[in-house]
């Protein structure tokens, strides 16, 4: 019981801090502020632990929870001085059509099943996955015991991959503060709450501009990708990378909707892309790089965005580069595997790359839908069809950029072995599939909904 209450206290602190930040930054309502609280809290937490890492301050309840409490207090004081106007864009209501009701029931059912699976495997059952017991949760435990982030060059203590950025580990370490010894349930529970909040925030952000039904269907299609549903059991950081990038895309899309909060929404998008960089090495190539390219495109095409875009890009770089510089200075590999930079064509991977997406079970029929919908959107874009949101269209490029990058990585480098043995190729393809589904969701304009 004490253990649970301690965890609940830490969680409440992080949620309060994140919710206040969200309210300050995005002027969001209570629901969105609460949903997006932990994604914000996870970033402030990793930046705090990074600061303590470079200054060699031990990771203790005081050094970790103290600054979080101060930050929450500062945000609270600042918020008291601000007048937050009520939500200007009303959230769409669920249509009363039979089809709408049926879709709502099916989507709710699917989300409930995924949540049940996630809750039971993350909280009721212990850590299970092989890499969790080495690279991920094990490294968190070793760091918690050491009171410093562990960068063990050998596996003598059971942890591997010191070159991984540590947002995942940092959150698990903070969630364990106040516990007598490492608490596996607390470590996984905080990640469960992070996932829950992230997907709820994606839903609410999309619902704000496209209506609830539209958002519900899009969120269900993303969460229901079979491989992604399984990763909601936690233990690997791929799901956290997906969440950060989805939130970054949702905030970027919101910034283009002319709601009068562009600067803040671009800044939020920048913060989440920095979160992605701090979550996995792939965050740079799948997140920061395409995000900068897309932002640059908008800045070039829309002069009104230019100033805010430059500010957001500056923030994203300022928050992301410290990890890269730190890793480089420490002599850590900047890629997950040291052989990643040897380029040559591996034709033997072509079959698996194709059939892995189109005939195996990891993605269901998501890629059939994505190829078809992208083709459809291209056609409608060329016809200047009013049913698509032209400003959201470049967001598709983000997903396809990641898709092509992954194909390059697995067909042009020795990583082909992780394609042929059915390993990381499938985990990484979760990123473009979910990004593309959300981008497609933003590309269609809101259908006028009947108000009940």
């Amino acid at each position: 019981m004490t253990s649970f209450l301690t965890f609940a206290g830490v969680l409440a602190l992080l949620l309060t801090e994140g919710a206040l930040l969200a309210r300050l930054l995005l002027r969001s309502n209570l629901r969105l502020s609460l949903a997006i609280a932990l994604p914000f809290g996870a970033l402030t937490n990793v930046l705090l632990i990074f600061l303590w890492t470079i200054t060699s301050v031990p990771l203790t309840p005081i050094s970790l929870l103290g600054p979080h409490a101060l930050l929450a207090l500062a945000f609270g004081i600042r918020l008291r001085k601000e007048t937050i106007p009520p939500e200007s864009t009303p959230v769409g209501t669920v249509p009363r059509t039979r089809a709408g009701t049926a879709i709502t029931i099916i989507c709710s059912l699917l989300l409930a099943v995924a949540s049940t699976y996630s809750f039971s495997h993350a909280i009721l059952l212990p850590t299970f996955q092989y890499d969790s017991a080495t690279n991920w949760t094990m490294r968190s435990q070793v760091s918690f015991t050491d009171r410093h982030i562990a960068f063990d060059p050998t596996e003598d203590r059971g942890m591997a991959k010191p070159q991984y950025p540590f947002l995942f580990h940092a959150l698990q370490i903070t969630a364990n503060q106040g516990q007598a010894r490492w608490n596996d349930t607390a470590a996984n529970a905080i990640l469960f709450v992070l996932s829950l909040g992230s997907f709820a925030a994606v839903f609410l952000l999309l619902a704000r501009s496209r209506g609830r039904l539209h958002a519900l269907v899009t969120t269900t299609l993303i969460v229901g990708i079979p491989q992604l549903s399984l990763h909601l059991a936690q233990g690997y950081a791929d799901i956290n990378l997906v969440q950060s990038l989805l939130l970054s895309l949702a905030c970027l899309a919101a910034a283009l909707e002319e709601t009068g909060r562009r600067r803040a929404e671009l800044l939020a998008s920048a913060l989440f892309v920095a979160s992605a960089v701090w979550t996995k090495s792939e965050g740079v190539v799948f997140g920061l790089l395409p995000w900068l390219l897309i932002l640059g495109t908008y800045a070039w095409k829309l002069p009104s965005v230019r100033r805010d875009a430059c500010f957001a890009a500056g923030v994203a770089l300022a928050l992301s580069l410290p990890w890269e510089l730190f890793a480089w200075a420490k002599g850590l590999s900047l890629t997950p595997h040291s052989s990643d930079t040897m380029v040559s064509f591996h034709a033997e991977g072509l079959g698996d790359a194709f059939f892995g997406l189109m005939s195996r079970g990891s993605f269901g029929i998501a890629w059939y839908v994505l190829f078809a919908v992208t083709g459809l959107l291209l056609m409608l874009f060329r016809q200047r069809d009013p049913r698509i949101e032209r400003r959201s269209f470049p967001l598709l490029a983000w997903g396809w950029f990641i898709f092509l990058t992954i194909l390059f990585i697995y067909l042009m480098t020795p990583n082909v072995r992780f394609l042929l043995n059915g390993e990381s190729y499938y985990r990484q393809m979760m990123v473009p599939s979910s990004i593309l589904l959300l981008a497609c969701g933003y590309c269609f304009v809101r259908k006028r909904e009947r108000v009940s």
Partner: protein
Amino acid sequence: MLHLSKLYRHTFPLALALSLWSLPLTSNAQVLHVRPTLVDNSSMVEQALRENTARTSTVLEGNGSLLQITYRSNEPIEVYLVPLVAEKSFVPTDYVRFTLPITQESTVNIDLTVSPGWSPGNHRYYLSLLSRTENADAAFVRVQFLPASAGQTLKALVRHIFTPEPYTPSSYHVLRGYRFLGISFTAALGVLILLAATLCALLVRRGRRLTAVLAVLIGGSLLYQLRFSIDLLRFTKEHLTGYELHGIYDEAGSVHVVAENLRILTQDGRQPAIVYVCRDGTNFKEKLLRYFTYPLHISAEAESRESATFAVVMDKLRWSFDGTEKREGTLRCGALDTSAEKLSVFPDGSVLFRLLPPSPKS
């Protein structure tokens, strides 16, 4: 699934005296009921390979949903069967297994439709036959395929679509996908919805065309997800039941309970806790044990046996202990040959020993 390929590679000469179609058919062979099951985890195969030293393989060809085998054997024969999709390739998730019991002469009907790779028509099947001893007296008297009716084919199709997705939570990387009658369900549904969407684009009137096309694409996706959600619920139930009621969590077995015991035994810190893991197979459970007992020193390296204070025997076929519960005896397992006290036996068969005192073999 990784270890299924091992079965295929084992084409040892016939160690057991198995001779296909070697004897004339006898008319009054007893009919036995043998139910084949899908091979849905690699530990089952690993265990079979460890326990059965004699192995052979053969390829059968025929058209039918039932494989009728008349045979005799003086010891049980474990059979692994998979339809071949090309000259030598197969889909690992198509493997089925069954055991032929001891008999002087009997006939069994094996339902081939259990394998999602089965389909009507002429096919080649790869069989691996395993027995415990190399001098087993076993022979196949007659083998024939019994044809499938339309009803049986339809029943097989439905059964295949509802065959659970093979998955264990330790493997987060790839799902093989559902298959029916040897066809990928993903590919079939994907192509079907693309065709349906194309038809909508051609036939539905202009104002509703986009809605119709999107409805088909989204509907297809939700249909697949509904099918997968059945498996998500099944995984949840199986894992929770196994863990809460039986102390076994899928492939991790009882490693969590072993870890809890080790933590309690070493919490006073009076003796250095070095735990020697004696195991066959992969180091998966060893890694988990290291995580759950950190900072205890857990190792399967032979060098660590000399300083080890505890030993855990897990997934080990050949080992011995001549003492009894709570009584000293000699533990012989891998590099270990020392007196020990047996402390606990766990639901998955793992055994925890206290080593008293360590006495290396060499």
